[in-house]
């Protein structure tokens, strides 16, 4: 994926179990992360 797409991805907001928002890029700002996108909670 190109850098523009990655930056757009990083700006997306995800929610934790309490509904608190987290900007995706905050997860990989200081460390390497393995993001596993699952199909569904089931």
């Amino acid at each position, binding site marked *: 994926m190109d850098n523009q797409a990655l930056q757009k991805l990083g700006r997306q907001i*995800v929610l934790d179990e309490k509904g608190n928002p987290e900007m995706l890029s905050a*997860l990989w*700002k200081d460390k*390497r*992360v*393995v993001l596993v*996108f*699952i199909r*569904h909670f089931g």
Partner: protein
Amino acid sequence: MISRRQVADLNKNMKAFKRKNSQLVVIGNGPEKFITPFKEANGYKGPLFTDPSLATYKILGFKKGLTSVIGFSPLKAGIRALSTGYLQKGIQGPPLQQGGVLVVGPGNIVHYIYRSQKAGDHPPVEEILQACAV
């Protein structure tokens, strides 16, 4: 059941990811109220977020459609998950959406991307661990 099995498999390798200074983060797409029951069902203690808008899945180009969930290999993966005790108890999220894996960081550097082609299509954990090697 396939997602549950996938998370349980990754859970077993949590320490291996830590040894590589990498953090495992699971992203789902159902309502956030299903995060806690999903974590409890899998014994997963790591971070788990949800993107009900599916915007992240779209940006990453993950597949969506009927052909990705029907056919022999999704059926085989389903039977494998079921036979090892991962009983699906209802789907929370769009059933036609596929997922994938992204290894990224620190900073905006992508090390690995895997887009699942069908239900039950996941990259080998060893392959992901290799992408975590510094």
